[in-house]
C-alpha cells in the first residue's frame, strides 16, 4: 500500500516511491537538504558530502541513500550543521574563492549553502593553490580557482550535450578539472553557452562572457531569502535569477 511507504524526516512523515533516494523524496515533499554536487536532473554523485543526514543514527549521504520504510532521518540538527559547515569550509580553503570580487556572488550556490549552514569564515588554513583561468573561448570563461569538483559540468557535457568536454584528472588533493582537448583550452572545443554544461555549475567556475555584475547588491538571487526558500540557481529559470535557459 503506497500510503505506508514513508519515512520520517526530523519527525515529519515523508512519502516515497520505490527507487527514490532520501534526497529525492525530501525534495518532492518540499523539504530542503543542503547539497552541492546533487542536481535533480542528474544521477546522484555523492562526492561533496554536504547532504549528510543521520539515518537511524548513522551518518549517510541523502543523495545516494535509498529511502526505506520506517527510516528515522535527521536533517536539521546541530551536529549535522557543524559537519556540513566543516565540509563547506574545506571547499573554501581548497580553492580560491574571493566572493567580494566574484561575478557569481549573491547568486552562487556554494556561497548560499555556506550561509545556510552558518559559515561566516573559512576557519581552516587556506591552501592558495595556483590554478589558471581559461578565457580562450569567445563566449565563456573558466576560472578553475572556483571549481569544487562536483563534476556536474562533466556529467552534463557527457550525458546531455553529448560533447564530453570536461573531465576530472589527478588523485587526492591533486584532483582537478580539465578540458578534454590536447591544449586543455576551452576555445579548442565546440562548447556553447547554451550547453547544459554551461548552466549547472554551482559556483562561478564557468561564466558567460560579455555580461556581468548586472544585478545590484540587494536584488541578487540569495540576497533576501536563503537557498532553502529560493532553490538552486541551476534549477531556476533565467527570468527568476537562475541559470536555466528558457
Amino acid at each position, binding site marked *: 500500500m503506497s500510503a505506508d511507504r514513508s519515512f520520517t524526516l526530523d519527525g515529519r512523515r515523508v512519502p516515497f516511491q520505490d527507487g527514490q533516494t532520501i534526497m529525492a523524496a525530501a525534495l518532492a515533499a518540499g523539504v530542503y537538504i543542503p547539497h552541492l554536487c546533487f542536481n535533480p536532473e542528474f544521477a546522484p554523485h555523492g562526492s561533496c558530502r554536504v547532504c*549528510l543526514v543521520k539515518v537511524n543514527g548513522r551518518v549517510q549521504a541523502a543523495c545516494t541513500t535509498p529511502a526505506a520504510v520506517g527510516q528515522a532521518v535527521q536533517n536539521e540538527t546541530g551536529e549535522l550543521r557543524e559537519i556540513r559547515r566543516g565540509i563547506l569550509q574545506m571547499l573554501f580553503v581548497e580553492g580560491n574563492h574571493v566572493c567580494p570580487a566574484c561575478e557569481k556572488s549573491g547568486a552562487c550556490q556554494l556561497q548560499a549553502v555556506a550561509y545556510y549552514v552558518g559559515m561566516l569564515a573559512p576557519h581552516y588554513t587556506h591552501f592558495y593553490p595556483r590554478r589558471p583561468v581559461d578565457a580562450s573561448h569567445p563566449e565563456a570563461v573558466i576560472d578553475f580557482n572556483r571549481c569544487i569538483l562536483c563534476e556536474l559540468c562533466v556529467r552534463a557535457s557527457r550525458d546531455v550535450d553529448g560533447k564530453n568536454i570536461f*573531465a576530472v584528472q589527478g588523485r587526492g588533493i591533486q584532483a582537478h578539472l580539465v578540458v578534454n582537448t590536447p591544449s586543455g583550452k576551452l576555445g579548442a572545443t565546440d562548447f556553447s553557452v547554451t550547453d547544459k554544461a554551461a548552466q549547472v555549475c554551482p559556483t562561478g567556475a564557468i561564466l558567460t562572457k560579455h555580461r556581468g555584475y548586472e544585478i545590484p547588491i540587494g536584488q541578487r538571487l540569495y540576497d533576501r531569502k536563503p537557498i532553502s526558500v529560493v532553490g538552486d540557481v541551476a534549477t531556476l529559470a533565467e527570468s527568476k535569477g537562475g541559470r536555466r535557459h528558457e
Partner: protein
Amino acid sequence: MAESDLPAQTVCEIVQRHGGTPTRLLQILRDVQDHLTWLSPETLDRVAEELHISPAKVRGVAEFYSFLYTAPRGSYDLLFSDNITDRMLGNRELLHYLCERLGVEVGKTRVDGVVTVGTTSCTGMCDQGPAALVNGYALTRLDKPRLNRIAELVNGQIPLAQWPCEFFEVISNIRRADILLGRHFADGSALRAVLKRGPEAILEEMVKSGLRGQGGAGFKSAAKWISCRNAPGEVKYVVCNADEGEPGTFKDRVLMQDFADLVFEGMTLCGRVIGARQGFVYLRGEYRYLLPSLQAHLQRRREVGLLGKAILGDPTFGFDIDIHLGAGAYVCGEESALIESLEGKHGVPRIRPPFPTTHGYLNQPTVVNNVETFAAAAKIAVEGGAWFASRGTAESKGTKLLSLSGDCERPGIYEYPFGVTVRRVLEDCGALDAQGIQMAGPAGHMISARQFDRRICFEDLATGGSFMVFSHRRDILDGVRNFAHFFVHESCGFCTPCRVGTSLLRDLVTKMHTGHGTRYDLEEMRKLGRIMQVACHCGLGQTAPNPVLDSLEQFPEAWERRLRSTAFEPAFDLDAALEQARQLTGRSDPDAYLREEELILGAMP
C-alpha cells in the same frame, strides 16, 4: 620505419596483445610504460585511439596511479618504501646516501635521463627492510654496501636481469604456523570435495566454519557467497583481493609466494559454488616480482586439470584465473574501487548499495575476498566447517595471519587462533620493550601498553594482519606524522572531507610535531578527525584520522610534550616562508634559519 614511429608501433602491438579491450587499460598502460619508461601525451592519445575511447579517460587513469608516469622518468626508477617500519630501519639516511652517490635529487630525474630516485608507500617488505622498488621489482635489506653496488650498476646502465639476484631475494619468514600454514594440503582435494558433495554441502560447511573476511572487515564469507550465488545473472565473477596495501601487512605476499595453489584452489571452489567461470587476482603492483611464478602455477593447474574448461574432467566445471597488476593505489584495496580498477578505470570507490555480490565486475554478481579468506575456504571444503570453528573465539572462528614488524627481534608471519592476546604475540616475536602497537595498519588502531591484554579478534581488536611495534626508543608522533602523509598520498580525491581533510590533518600534525602547536590545535585535530570519521565516502577517509585520534587518547604525553604554552599560534610559519628566499640565494647555513631546531626538523618531509 622512421624512428619516431617506434612508440606508435609499440602501443599498437601491446593493445593488440590485450585484445583491444578497454577493461585492460591499466594493464596496457603498464606494459607500454615498461617499454617507453613514461607515458607522453602522444602515447596516451595513441592508446585512446587504438582502444576507441576518449583521451581524457586514458589520461585520467594514467594520472591516478602512482606507478604510471606522465612526465619523463629515468630508465632506472628507484622508489624507497617509506613506511614507518622502513624509517625505523634508517631508510631516510639510505635514500639521501644513494641520491648523493648518483648525483640526483629526490623525486627528480637525473639530467641524463638514466635514473630517478623517490619514495613510495609501504612495499610490504617490513620484515626485511629497508626496502625499495627498482622498475617495480622489490629490493630488500638495503644497506650502504648494497647501495654502492646499485649506484655502480645504474651508472654502468647494467640491465636489471644482470643485477645480483640476492638483491631481489624475498624471504617468507614464517615464524608460527597453525592450521592454515601448518597442515599439508593436497592440490585438487577441495575441488574433488565440491564435485562429490555439491555446492550446497560446501556452503553448509562454510556457514558452520564461521569464516569471516580476513582482509579485516570481517563480513561473513558464507553470506557473501550465498548472496552472489542467489543473485540473478548469467555471468558471475570471483575476485581475489591481493592488493595488500595496508602499511605493515605482508601476509598475502607470503601466501601468494608459498601457498599460491591453496589460494587458487579456494577461488576455483568459490567459482563452482557461486556459478562463476572467470576469476581474477588483483595483485598489488609492488608484488609484480611474483607474477612469473604465479603464471607458472596457473599453467601447471591447467595442465593437470585443476583449471580450465573441464576441471577434473567434468565438462560442467569450467573456471580460469587471470592476474591483473595494480599500479600503486592503496584505495584499490577497497573492493568496489578494486573492481573499478579491474575494469580499467581509475580506482574510485563506488556508491554502495548496490554491493558487488549483485553488481560487481562489469555490473555482474561478484565475490571479492581476501587472499587469506580463499586459502581458508579451500581448507574448510576438505576438513569441514566444524574443524575450522574449533579454533578461535565465539565470533571469530579459525586463525589469523599476523604480519609482525617494527621493534621486535623476530619479525615475520605468525599464525594464531583468533583470541590471542597482544601480550602473547609480543612475547613470541621478542618485542620486550614495546611502548605501543599500530594494529591493522594506519587505518586500524594505535594501542598503548595499558591495552596489551586485549585480544585479537573481531569482538575486540579486529585486524587485517598488520602489527607494527613501537619500542620506548621511538617517538610515537613520528609514526602519526608518517601515517598522515600516507593518507594524503593515497586519498583518491573523490569526496571533500577526505580530499581536503587529509591535507588539513597532515598540516596540523606537522605543526604539532615541529613544536609550533597549542592546545587549540589539539582540539582542531579532534574536531576535524570526527568530521572525517563520519562524513567520508569510503573506509579510507573514515579511518584516515585514526592514528591522530588514537594517539591523542593513548599517548597524550607524546603530544603534551610539544605544546606551546600560548593559547594560540598562527599557522603562518615565518621560517618556512623564508624557504623560497633561501633556495634562491643558495643559503643553507644556520644563520639563514630563524631557529636552530628548524634545521633538524626541516630534514623531515
